[in-house]
C-alpha cells in the first residue's frame, strides 16, 4: 500500500496536487477506499484521498438539493435525507460485499464511479442527478461545473464528464445532487417463470405498463427464473397499481407479492449483487446491453460455467465465473456481439493487468479522449493506467 495523503479541506487537496505536479509524481486518487480493487491497479508512490473532506454543506429539502464534501459517507447523506423523508434517486450501491471492504463508500466515490442501483431503470443514474460539483484539476486549480439548481445548461457539462471518470480527470471535492421525496410504500411482484427469456419478457411488459415500475430484476433459481417487479409510491397507489400489474403480467407465471419491509430488503440485496452469491475466488463482470439481449449474455456465461443475475429489465447483467483471460474474452465478446459493453468489475490483480477491463474506444474517439485528459490533467498525475493501460 502506498503512502496516503488525506487532507481535511480543499486547500489541502490543492496543495497535494501542486506538490505532485512539481515533483512529477503521479497520485492514486480515492475516497474512502470502499471500491478499492476496481478497474486496473494504479502504479503510484502516493495516494490522495478525499476521506478527510466530510460533511453536508447545504441541504434544502424544498429545493430538492443536497451538497456535501466528497468524503462524506453515503450512509450519512442517506440519514440526513431520511430525516426529511427524502432519498437519493439512483439508489447508489455500497458494494462492500463485492469488494470485501469495510470502509463506507463516500459520496464523491459514488459519483466518480457513476454506479446506480435498481431504480436507475426508471429514475436515472447517479450522473443524471449530479447538479453541480467542484474538483481540482491537474494544474491544481478548483473548477466548478453546474451549480445548486435543478436546471442548468450553462457551459460544457463537466459534471457528467467527471461522473464515472474514476478520479482520472480531477479530484472531486464537493458534489451537489438532486434528491426526491422517498416513496411512502414499496411492494414487489415476484413471478416464477420457466427461463430467462420469459422473465425478461415479463419485465418488459411491466416496464411498458403505465404503472411506474421502479425496479425490474431477473434472478435464476435452480430450474426456473424469478422475475421481480417493484412499485414505489403512496400506499394507496401501490395497492391499486399492484392489482393492475398482477392482471397485466398474469400470463407469465405463478405470482407472489412482497409487501413493504420484505420488498425493501429484497431490492437492497439486488443493489448489492447479493443474489449472485459470488465466491471469493470468482471474477465479476458487469455487462450493459439492451434488455432483450440479456439472455444471450447469460447463455455465454453459462457456456463458461458462470452464473448471472439481471437488473434494469434485463439490460444490466452481472456475471460470476472463474477469472481467466479466456472467460474475459468470452463475456466481452458476447457483449460486443449484442451491441453492448462489458466491464471486468472484480478480479485478481493479475487478470486486471492482463486484459482491457473496459472495451477499447474507436481510434478517433481515443485520440480526442487523450486530448481531453491532457486538458484536465496535463501532467498525467491522476490515476495513471486505472482505466486503460498507459
Amino acid at each position, binding site marked *: 500500500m502506498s503512502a496516503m495523503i488525506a487532507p481535511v479541506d480543499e486547500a489541502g487537496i490543492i496543495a497535494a496536487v501542486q506538490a505532485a505536479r512539481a515533483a512529477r509524481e503521479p497520485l492514486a486518487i480515492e475516497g474512502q477506499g470502499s471500491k478499492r480493487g476496481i478497474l486496473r491497479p494504479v502504479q503510484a508512490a502516493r495516494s490522495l484521498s478525499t476521506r478527510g473532506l466530510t460533511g453536508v454543506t447545504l441541504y434544502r429539502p424544498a429545493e430538492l438539493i443536497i451538497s456535501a464534501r466528497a468524503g462524506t459517507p453515503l450512509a450519512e447523506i442517506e440519514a440526513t435525507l431520511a430525516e426529511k423523508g427524502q432519498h437519493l434517486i439512483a439508489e447508489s450501491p455500497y458494494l462492500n460485499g463485492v469488494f470485501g471492504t469495510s470502509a463506507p463508500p463516500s459520496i464523491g466515490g459514488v459519483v466518480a464511479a457513476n454506479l446506480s442501483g435498481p431504480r436507475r431503470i426508471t429514475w436515472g443514474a447517479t450522473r443524471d442527478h449530479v447538479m453541480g460539483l467542484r474538483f481540482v484539476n491537474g494544474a491544481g486549480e478548483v473548477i466548478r461545473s453546474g451549480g445548486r439548481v435543478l436546471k442548468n*445548461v450553462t457551459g460544457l457539462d463537466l459534471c457528467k464528464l467527471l461522473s464515472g471518470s474514476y478520479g482520472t480527470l480531477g479530484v472531486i471535492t464537493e458534489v451537489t445532487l438532486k434528491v426526491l421525496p422517498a416513496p411512502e410504500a414499496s411492494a414487489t411482484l415476484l413471478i416464477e417463470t420457466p427461463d430467462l427469456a420469459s422473465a425478461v419478457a415479463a419485465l418488459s411488459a411491466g416496464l411498458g405498463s403505465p404503472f411506474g415500475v421502479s425496479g425490474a430484476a431477473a434472478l435464476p433459481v435452480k430450474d426456473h427464473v424469478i422475475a421481480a417487479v417493484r412499485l414505489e409510491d403512496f400506499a394507496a397507489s401501490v395497492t391499486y397499481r399492484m392489482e393492475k400489474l398482477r392482471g397485466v403480467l398474469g400470463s407469465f407465471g405463478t405470482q407472489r407479492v412482497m409487501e413493504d419491509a420484505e420488498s425493501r430488503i429484497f431490492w437492497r440485496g439486488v443493489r448489492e449483487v447479493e443474489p449472485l452469491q459470488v465466491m471469493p475466488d470468482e471474477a465479476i463482470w458487469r455487462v*450493459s446491453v439492451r434488455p432483450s439481449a440479456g439472455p444471450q449474455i447469460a447463455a455465454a456465461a453459462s457456456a463458461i460455467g458462470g452464473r448471472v443475475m439481471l437488473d434494469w429489465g434485463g439490460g444490466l447483467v452481472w456475471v460470476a465465473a472463474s477469472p481467466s483471460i479466456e472467460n474475459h474474452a468470452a463475456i466481452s465478446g458476447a457483449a460486443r456481439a449484442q451491441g453492448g459493453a462489458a466491464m471486468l468489475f472484480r478480479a485478481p490483480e493479475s487478470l486486471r493487468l492482463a486484459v482491457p477491463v473496459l472495451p477499447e474506444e474507436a481510434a478517433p474517439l481515443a485520440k480526442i479522449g487523450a486530448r481531453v485528459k491532457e486538458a484536465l490533467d496535463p501532467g498525467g498525475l491522476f490515476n495513471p493506467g486505472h482505466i486503460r493501460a498507459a
Partner: protein
Amino acid sequence: MITLPAPKPEILARRAEIIAALCAFVPGDGVIAEGIRLKPYETDGLAAYRQMPLAVVLPSTTEQVAAVLRYCNEQGIRVVPRGAGTSLSGGALPLADAVVVGLMRLNAIHEINYADRYAVVGAGVTNIGITKAVEADGFFYAPDPSSQLACMIGGNVMMNSGGAHCLKYGVTANNLLGVKFVTIEGEVLEIGGTYLDAAGYDWLGLITGSEGQLGIVTEVTVRILRSAEGARAMLAAFNSIEIAGAAVDAIIGSGIIPVALEFMDKPCIHACEAFAHAGYPLDAEAMLIIEVEGSIAEQDALLARIKDICARFDPISLKVAETAEQSLAIWKGRKGAFGAVGRISPDYLCMDGTIPTSELPRVLRRIGEMSDQYGLKVANVFHAGDGNLHPLIMFDANDADSFHRAEAFGADILKLCVEVGGCLTGEHGVGVEKRDLMTVQFQPHELTQQRAIKSAFDPDWLLNPAKVFPLQGALAPALAAE
C-alpha cells in the same frame, strides 16, 4: 449589439469554389447559395440578430455530413450546425464566412423498439415527431420544450432542451441512450448505444448541451416511456408572490412530485387571459398550474391533497379540473404565454435563468424594480418545480434604444440569477446571446478549462464560432474580433 469575429477574407474570396465543392458532397438541391433562398437562414429564434451565411448545406446522410466537415476542416472554413432554427439564444446564428449545416433532411425514424423502450431517429426528426410515432402504442418521448412542434431532436441534444415536465421526467440528457456524432475531422463516432451506463468516460453527457462546439449529431437513440394512465391539472391563485412560493415549497415538501408545476405572475396572467380566455383570476398576484398523473382515482387523491395544501395559503381561487377538457383549458393560457405576450408587445426577449426556488420572491421583486428602472414591461412565467425563470421583456424592435434597454435589462436579470446562487441558462443555452455573461458565472481559469476541452474536439475552433465562450480570453485567440 453582439460582436461577431471578422470573416476570413480568403474564405469569402473563394466562395464560388467552396460552393462547387459542397455541391459535389451533397448532390441535387442540397446546397443553397442564392441570396433569396439563404434569407431564412440568417437568423433563428432570437430574431434580433441576423447574419447571412456563406452558404447552407442540407445533407441527407451522415456520410455527407462527414464529407462536408472533413472538407471544411481541411480548408479552415467555419461551420454552424442548425436544426429547425428555433434557438432562443442565437445558437444557430450564422457567420458571413461560415457554412451552415442544416440537419432537417436527416428526418427518418430508423427503429422503434417497445420491448427495449428506445427509438433511433435522425437528428432532423422533430421532438413531437418522436412522440407522434409511438403514441398510438401508449408511449411518448418525455422532454417537451415549448417549441416541440418545430424543434428537432438533434438541436435538442445540442442544447440539452428541457420543457414543462422535467421535474419528473428529466431533460434531454436524462432521456438519451446514444448518438451518431461527426467530428470536425469528418470521423463518424458511435457514442453510447441502446443500453444504459456502460463504464468509461461519459462522452454522451459531455456532448449533450455542448451547443455545436464539439461536433455534429446526425442520429439519436432516445428512451421512450409508457404514458401514465392519465393526467389532470389544477389551478391555484394567491394574493402575493411570497405566498405562492410558500405553497410550492409545501407541495414539494409533502412528498408529491407533480409532473408539472408552473408559476405565472400578474402581468403574465393578464396577457394569457386576454389571449386564451382560460378563466384565469385577474385579481391574483401569482398563479400556479399543477399537474399530476395516474388513474382517475389517483389523480383525484393527489389533487385533493394538493388542494388541501393550497387551502392553507388563503388562495383567492382554487380550480381542480374535473375532466380532460377542463385540464386542457387550464393549460391553454400557459401554453400560449409567449404568443400572448407577443400580442400585447411588438417584440419581447425571453430570458431563461434558473434560481434556487427559495429566492423567487426576492428575484421577482428585483425584476419588478428593474422593470420600472428600464421603463420596459415584463411578464414572468416560471417552471416553479425546478427554479427555471422565463421573464419576457417587452420592447419595440423598431426603436433601437428600446432594444438596447431590453438587452441590458435581460443581462441584469441573469446577473441577479447568478448572484442568488442560480445560473445564466436553464434550458435555452448560452448561444451568442449570453456569451459575454459567461464571465459572471465562471472564473477566467474555469472558462479556460472549458475552452481546452472544446479544443480537444475542435483544435482550430471552426465549429459554431462566437457562441458559448466570450471572444476574448485564454485559448480563444483565433476568434478575436476585428
